[in-house]
């Protein structure tokens, strides 16, 4: 956002509004909506993969109301944190809360355990070589960003399946487990074939991310 003088002025205006009175905070929220709606929903979409259009609107309003609450209680200080970082954190947390409520699962693994499991599983597969090469060539972040972009653009059923796999990792879920999760979470009784197809589509996007990041030669049989 802040790459032109106009953008910087807009950010400054929003900051001034957010530290003002009730009416000014309202103007700040309206301006945030006008300038950042797509970016905010972009953050929400990457966390709440299975959210439909109405869910996105609910989460988005939750984000805006949280920003309103923080500003009203003077919890946002532009001298301490930049506006973009503040908005990012609020959007991420509200979307993560939505996913937690939807999954009704508690975080079982620490970040260290997740990192260890990820490394072990990749190390034991044919993807170890491209992954090591990507890390050496500092393309790790590029691959992961491509995965997020491609998977968040998938069809609703495929995004549901992706979210289930992500949230349960490193627990291994079978196709019937995922089918059961879809039934429990969304009340939709999907055929096993449809679930299998959705899993395959999600994993194909991960492969595609490796390919478009320059590691296709390692993985194509």
């Amino acid at each position, binding site marked *: 956002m802040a790459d032109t003088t106009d953008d910087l002025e807009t950010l400054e205006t929003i900051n001034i509004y957010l530290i003002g009175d009730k009416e000014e905070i309202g103007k700040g929220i309206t301006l945030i909506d006008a300038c950042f709606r797509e970016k905010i929903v972009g953050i929400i979409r990457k966390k709440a993969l299975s959210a439909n259009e109405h869910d996105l609107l609910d989460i988005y309003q939750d984000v805006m*109301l949280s920003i309103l609450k923080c500003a009203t209680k003077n919890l946002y200080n532009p001298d301490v944190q930049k506006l973009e*970082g503040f908005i990012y954190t609020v959007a991420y947390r509200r979307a993560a809360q939505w996913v937690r409520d939807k999954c009704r699962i508690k975080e079982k693994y620490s970040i260290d355990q997740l990192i260890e499991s990820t490394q072990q599983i*990749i190390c034991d597969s044919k993807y*170890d070589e491209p992954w090591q090469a990507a890390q050496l060539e500092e393309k790790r972040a590029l691959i992961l960003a491509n995965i997020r972009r491609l998977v968040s653009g998938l069809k609703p059923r495929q995004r549901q399946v992706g979210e289930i796999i992500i949230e349960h990792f490193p627990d*291994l879920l079978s196709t019937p487990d995922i089918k059961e999760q879809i039934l429990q979470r969304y009340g939709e009784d999907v055929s096993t074939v449809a679930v299998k197809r959705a899993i395959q589509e999600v994993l194909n996007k991960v492969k595609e*991310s490796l390919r478009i990041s320059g590691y296709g030669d390692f993985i194509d049989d």
Partner: protein
Amino acid sequence: MTNTNDNVNKDERALEALLAAAFRLDFPEEISDEQAEKFFQQPSGLSQEDKEAISSWGTDFIEDMLKNQKPISKDHSQDIHVDKELEKESFAMNRNKDDSDLDDEAHREIEKKRKEILDEEKDRDKDQSNGS
């Protein structure tokens, strides 16, 4: 055969691991101001479908949300509208129905019920307008 299946499973698990790494490890809750700034300069990555959906929201809901200090459910307002339409239609169907074989008492009972339902609906509308 078992080895091949094992390898396929291991490779699929590795793809799941990369997926989890992308969404849970490389997409953290808190990022630095510089990272956030960079993040906001990049394209949102939203699909065309999502972009169309968010532009269909319009801007009035933000004003309503700020006024009420709570989320506005567009879906819900549509549901109420549909419910009312259905109720109107069912009343109309009852009135148009050939009821010549009903006796006076049945007519009185139907009229009484109809009045009760209409009163309830009026009360509910009044509550909703007081609540908003």
